[in-house]
């Protein structure tokens, strides 16, 4: 039977359904794996309470472990510790930027962004800081919609929570 680390490594490869360039591990959704008797418990945490991707992620986890020597798989949704964008690794943030999504700023500097006034956000296409918020709520629960006033392109910002 595979051990906890081996299972964790397999699950680390699962891409996020909404942003396939990063994995559920990069995002901090995948918390930990615990083996209890013949059951493999996988703990995941949602980015937002109502994130519709959670069910899909659960299915992906079941799928990834199908046919592997792991016993019964039980996916558990946990709310504590509360998910924060600060868990996203620097490497994953760079992947987000290349994909065209402005990565979340650290929660300590995001206050100005939340108010929508501070110009601290860089356009992921041209790097200009001359950007403006269009809407706090974007294409998914975790993103806000911005536009670049220099290259005129709209872009998603992975908002900090």
């Amino acid at each position, binding site marked *: 039977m595979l051990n906890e680390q081996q299972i964790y490594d397999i699950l680390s490869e699962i891409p996020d359904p909404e942003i396939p360039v990063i994995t559920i591990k990069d995002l901090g959704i995948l918390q930990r794996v615990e083996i209890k008797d013949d059951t493999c418990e996988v703990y995941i945490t*949602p980015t*937002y*309470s*109502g*994130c*519709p991707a959670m069910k899909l992620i659960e299915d992906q986890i079941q799928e990834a472990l199908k046919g592997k020597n792991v016993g019964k798989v039980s996916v558990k949704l*946990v*709310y*504590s510790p*509360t*998910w924060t964008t600060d868990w996203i690794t620097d490497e994953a943030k760079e992947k987000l930027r290349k994909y065209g999504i402005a990565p979340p700023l650290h929660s300590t500097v995001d206050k100005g962004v*939340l*108010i929508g006034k501070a110009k601290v956000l860089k356009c992921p296409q041209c790097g200009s800081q001359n950007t403006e918020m*269009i*809407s*706090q*709520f*974007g*294409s998914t*629960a975790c993103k806000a*919609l911005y536009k670049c006033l220099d290259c005129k392109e709209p872009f998603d910002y992975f*908002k900090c*929570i």
Partner: protein
Amino acid sequence: MTKQEALFSYTLRLGDNALILGHRLSEWSSKGPLLEEDIAMTNMALDLIGRADAMLKYAAQVEGKGRTEDDLAYKRGERQFLCNLIVQLPNGDFGYTIARQLIMSAFDICLYEELVKSKDETIAAISAKAVKEVKYHLKFATDWTLRLGDGTEESHQRIQKSFNDIWMYTGELFEMNEVDAILIKEGIAVDLNSLKARWKKIMTEVLLEATLTVPADTYMQTGSRKGVHTESLGYILAEMQYLQRAYPDAKW
């Protein structure tokens, strides 16, 4: 009433408020005045329904009778719901929805920032998540209250009327009963009276900045804590529960 019964009732109350307000906001889907606002309101609906899912799941677990969160949402009758009257009210115009959202987001921020300290770990964890999301909801409702209040003569007059009309449903938010008494003693629930001053302060600041008048606290409508609801709740449930009533246990 045992502690377990009180906790079941309390989590239902929190879950039902999120569920019904989320359902109301979802009704704006494809009907928002601007595409961005349409998306914003459905995003908030998603946060609220997510919170309802977590709370009702926990309620079902506390009850321990084998029911699920879906059973609680789809198979309870009107009198068994414990959501406040204000979340049941029909959306009205955009300004009316914004007025209700400001009242509820301000209330939620006061409530959940305290519930983060609850001795019940599950409630504390769900609350920590809620606080992060509600900050965005409050910001959204505040922005639009300012825009409509300090906007044109018509928008000002209409949102003022919305606040005036809805105000009599705000008193009930702070009402407490035996459930609160038991759980406050256990360090699980918050004393709702202690939230009132802060809620009023947020409301007053936003309304005054929006050049609006804070309505006077006169007659306050109550009933929801006893399961006596507005006429609207029955209509919401008729739509929301239709599928599970017509085709019990249907899955897709």
